[in-house]
Each structure stands twice: as C-alpha cells, then as structure tokens.
C-alpha cells in the first residue's frame, strides 16, 4: 500500500511545505493587525482609570447635573455618561460631526456595555472604572446606542440615542452644554437648556 509519495521522507517534506504556508498566513494576519495598531493608532479602549462607584452621584465629574455633552474651555467636546440600571443618563445625547469627541462612561451598579450602532464606538462599562472612548463622527444622523451587556432583568429596554448634528448647529449654552430636546423631560429641567437646531 505504501507507494512512493507515501514515503516517510516525502511526507515530511510535504508537511514542511505546508508549515511554511501556515506561517505565512499567520504572519499576514498578525502583520496587518500590527500595522493598523502602530500606524493608524487603532486601539481598543484601554485607559485604566479607577473611580469609586458608590459616590458617583455625590461628587466628582459624574454627578447628575454634569452629565451629557459639553464643550470644554479648550474647545474639545466631552460626553459624560452614567450607565445605570436600566438607562443611560442622559438617555439622549447630541454631538457635532467632524469634531473629536471623548466619551467618559462609568457605572454605579453593575457591568454594562455600549455600542453606537453603525460606528466603531464599543466599550464595556464596569463599576469601579471609567471607560474612555475617543471618536469622530463623520456624518450627521441619529444612531441607536443599546446596552450590550446583561445588567439585569431590565437590560432589554436599555437603549438610548446619539444625535450627530452639523458642527454649526451644535451651539453650547453659557455652561458649554448641549442636550437633546426631549419634551417629556423639559418641565423638570431646572434651567431648560437650549437645543441646537
């Protein structure tokens, strides 16, 4: 049964050739990832920053009145979000297109996650950590932003919206803030904020 191509040395040689093919395949895979990480600076969100989840609402940057989109003094845009059971606070945000936006997100209770549908914005949100994601939205439009990690029985209803508007339409108020126009919420807002149109 053992013919010439089935010679032990022939088998070894054929296998070595295949090993070279495999090595090249792996090199291509790794190479493309290395190049994209080093050249395009394409990284997963990995800024390690700790925060006490029990006191978020009492003091610091994640107090209720400080959440949402804001234009900082240096002109950069920061969006602060709290992912809580079972809503993002605020549950609608508005950001300018074509400008770098930094999301800072944390959780006071359990693990959550978020993705902005149609973009590469995707991060876990963990109690005890601040997740920081930087992105630029190239186009205007509205995106859904669901919670993508099981956070309890209300998880399926934890959806919010990200509205991307023309940079000119994104007009901060005197505190630098811009919020969605949500009629159901406006009666409770102490100082109704201007909405961009």
């Amino acid at each position: 049964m053992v013919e010439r191509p089935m010679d032990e040395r022939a088998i070894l040689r054929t296998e070595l050739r295949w090993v070279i093919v495999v090595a090249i395949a792996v090199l291509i895979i790794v190479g493309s990832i290395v190049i994209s990480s080093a050249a395009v600076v394409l990284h997963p969100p990995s800024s390690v920053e700790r925060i006490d989840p029990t006191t978020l609402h009492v003091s610091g940057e994640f107090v209720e009145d400080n959440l949402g989109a804001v234009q900082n003094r240096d002109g950069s845009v920061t969006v602060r979000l709290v992912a809580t059971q079972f809503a993002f606070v605020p549950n609608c945000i508005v950001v300018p297109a074509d400008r770098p936006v930094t999301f800072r997100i944390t959780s006071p209770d359990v693990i959550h996650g978020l993705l902005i549908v149609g973009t590469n914005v995707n991060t876990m949100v963990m109690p005890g950590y601040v997740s920081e994601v930087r992105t630029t939205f190239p186009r205007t439009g509205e995106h859904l932003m669901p919670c993508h990690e099981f956070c309890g029985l209300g998880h399926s209803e934890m959806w919010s919206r990200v509205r991307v508007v023309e940079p000119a339409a994104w007009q901060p108020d005197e505190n630098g803030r811009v919020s969605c126009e949500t009629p159901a919420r406006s009666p409770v807002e102490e100082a109704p904020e201007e909405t961009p149109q």
Partner: protein
Amino acid sequence: MKQRAEPLILAHLWVAFVAFAIASVMGAAQMLSRSPLTAPAEGPEAYFISVTAHGTLMAYVLPTLFVMGFGYFVATTALARPLPGLRAAWLGFWLALVGTLLAALAVVTGRATVLYTFYPPLTGSALYYLGLVLVVVGSWIWIVLMILAMREWKYENPGRPVPLAMFATVANAVMWLWTTAGVAVELLFQVIPAALGWKDTIDVGLSRTLFSWTLHAIVYFWLIPAYIAFYTMLPQAAGGRLYSDTMGRIVFILFLLYSLPVGMHHLFMDPGHGTGFKFLQMMLTSLVTVPTLLTIFTIAASLEIAGRLRGGKGLFGWIAALPWHRPMVLAAGLSFVMLGLGGFGGLVNMGYGMNAMVHNTSWVTAHFHLIFGGSVVIMYFAIAYEIWPKLTGRRAVGTGAMRVQLWTWFIGVLVTTLPWHALGLGGQPRRVATFDFSEPQIAWWAPWILVSTVGGALMLASALLFIWNLVGFHRGPATGERHMTYALAVHPPMHLPRALNGFALWNWLVLFLMVVAYGYPIAQFFFVDGPPALIQRVTEAG
C-alpha cells in the same frame, strides 16, 4: 473481578445528551422571544432564566460530561486495559450529576438569573455556583484518572508511543486542569463568599480577568474531542490511514500551549487593562489558528489516501470517491465547512481593533454557535454514532436517519447563524430578550431574525432526532461486537522523543506563558488600590 466501564461511559454520555436536548428546546424558545413572533413564555425573567439554563447546560454540562465519558472510552479502548479507579470515576460522575441538578434548581427557580458567565456584582444563589464547582470537581477526578491511565500504560509499555487518541485525551485533561484554575479561583474566593453573604463588595476587574483565563481555553476543551475524531476515527471510517501521527501530536500540544494565554481577547473592550497585555494575548491568539490550519492539511491528506484507495482519480476525484454515506465521514465534511466559515468570523473577533465592530453583538453569538454548536457538536454526534454500537454491543437498523439528522443540523446551524452575523454587523446586541421593531432603525432586523428562528427550529428537530437515533441503538439487533479500532498512521511511530509522548516540557512552557500573559494583569489587583463594586443579589423570582 473485572468491572466493565461501559455503564460508566453510557451514564456520562446520556447525561450530556439529555442536557443537550433540554437546552435545545430552550434555545429555540429564546429565538422566538427575540423574534416578532410570540414566545411560549414572554418576558425578561423567563428569557434570562432560559438563557442562563441554556448556557449552563450547553457550555458546562454537555461538553464536560461528554469529554469525560469519551475520555473513559478512549482510555479503555485505545490503551486496551481496564480503567484505573472505576469507583473514583463513578464518584466523579455523581458529583457532576448532583452539581448539575443543584445548579439547575437554582436557575429554574429564578434565584440565579445571572447568565452562565456570572457577571458579578450580580450575584445569585450560592447553590448555583456550588453546583458548578461540583461539576468541575467531578471533572478533576477524571483528569487524575486520565493521567494515571496513561502513566500505568507507559510503565507497562516502556519506550513505546502512547496511542494518539489517548495522547490527545490526556492533552485535553492537562489543559482542562489549567483552564479550570481561573474560574475556580473566581468562584471560590470571590463569588461564593459574596453569594453566602460573607462579603458585600467585589472587584469586577479581577473577576473578569480570572474568568477570561478560563473562557477561551474552555472552548478548546469542548473542541478537542472533535479533533480526536478527525485524527483517529475519521481516516478509519473513510477507509484510509492517518497521514502523519507526529503532526497529530504536535497539533494537540499546540492546543495545550496556545489556548490558555489568550483569554484576554475577550476583554479587548474592558477598561481594566492596558493595551500592552491585550496586544500580547492577541499575538498569542493568532497562534491558535496554527493547529487548525495544520489539521486541515493532515486530514485532507488522510482522506485523499482513503479516496484514492477507493478508486478516486484526478485532482478532486478522490473527494467524490469517499464513503459519504458513513455518518463519521459526512459529519467531518460538514464540520470542516462550518469550521472554515466560523474561523473566518473568528479572525474578526480576534482582531485587536476590528473587535470594536462586533464585540457583544450577535456576530459573537453567531461565531460560537457556528464553531461549537456547528462544527464541534456535529462531531459529538458522529462520535456517538461511532461508539454507541461498541458500548451497547448492538447496531442500528440503518444509517439513513443519522444522515438526515446530520444534514438537518448542518442546515439548521447555517440558517441560524448566517443571519446573526449580518445582524451583528448591523449592531444587534446579544443577550436582549425583546426588540422594539416599531423603531425604524432596526425594523430591518425582523425578517432576518425570522429566518434564523426557522434555523433554530431545524436545530431543535435535529437534536430530538439525534436522541431518537441513540435510543434506536439500544433497541437494535445485538451483535456482541465491542472492539474499537482507531486509525493507524501511514508510518506508525516506533520511538518518540519524550516531548511527543508526554507533557512535562509543555507544562513548563504553559506555566511560562501564563506567568507572562496573566502575571501582571492579575497581580495589579493586589497592589493597585481600586474601589470595588457593591454586590447585587438576585435572590427571588420576580
């Protein structure tokens, strides 16, 4: 007084497959819940209890019990000697069974609706976690028995190569010991103390890191039986020989080495780790493609030998000449197709930057249902069809129902998972009970979900037919034929270096890799001061 191992093996496999059948029903019901159709029990509580049970049964009970039972089978047949410690093996079985029942009790009463991946600080009943620990402890007994069986055989056969099937089984046992360390530490030192009320906080960064230690290697623990079948059963069933025994050993060694230090690719999107260790583990992850790529070649070459022996001519003529009517050959062919599709999807998941497109979307669910539910479980079916006659001493009336079952499973898996891939790219999140299809942005998901629901129904039908087929063996005509033969290599090895006949060297290298890959990422939690999260108890049914 020589006791037989068949009842032990059958007990393991039957528990595994009954768990599988129950979980299949739940899976189909969950798909109805997510679809625009009406599910038998709507609402998040029913859905998440079902998801928890489905995951627990499919990820912990089915593979663990199957691998244990199959391991005992290989140890008795490939080594042709009685199993050492049959009583201990039964103890392991009962621990696993009792553990399964305790965990199931906690889940179905709504006291452990935390999904099978736990998600602390959500904390369910301690019964759930203790039940799972019992399952793991039962499998630890199996590990010891597998190592002992190989060691005794080597003592009796000095200098001879351990049969490949047993070598691979012990590779899996050794890997499983390493694998379970992460989740065992998480459960015993973090989650169970919290569930018992001894602690009211938990560091979720640490618990997620420990779980990731287990989370990827466990997938290879599930997978290795399929590879054992590729190397030692498929060439035999196809009527040929294994192309290379040495390559088989190297493949299983590579699985042992590279399935462990890679779990952090499940944490790419976590804020708990820097880019460096994520990158390192991504690099190591790229190496787990190597054993699969090597296998594709070796198995294709082995099948070519069989095809040509059966008269196949030409470049591809040997493929048509293969005995596709045999369940093992058919299942392996279908398995390779699913492995190819799933492997491509896996490249996106492991992509250090690309992962952001698909993390925690249906893409991931699709990926592991295609790889595990598809290419691995279909080989569990084939293995069962192959060894059931040896275990019962009876044969089936015919193989037609088996072929129908395998094809239905294959089609069901593809129809289920291909739409999920598309939905995942479209941003559909995992682990959601119901969707608001009136929302215009996601209205287009509905028809795709319906298609996948049809696939789920096909998978359920196939799962039930599988159980029916197994029962058929027990009622089939007695043959008394219990002898199992494994495929021989074209050139069976005479002497092997220790490195290809044991695991000492590889265990040292695994230790090195784990210290490098997980040393600092775990150690940081002990010297970086981080405020923990509050335990949140899931104590009652809603």
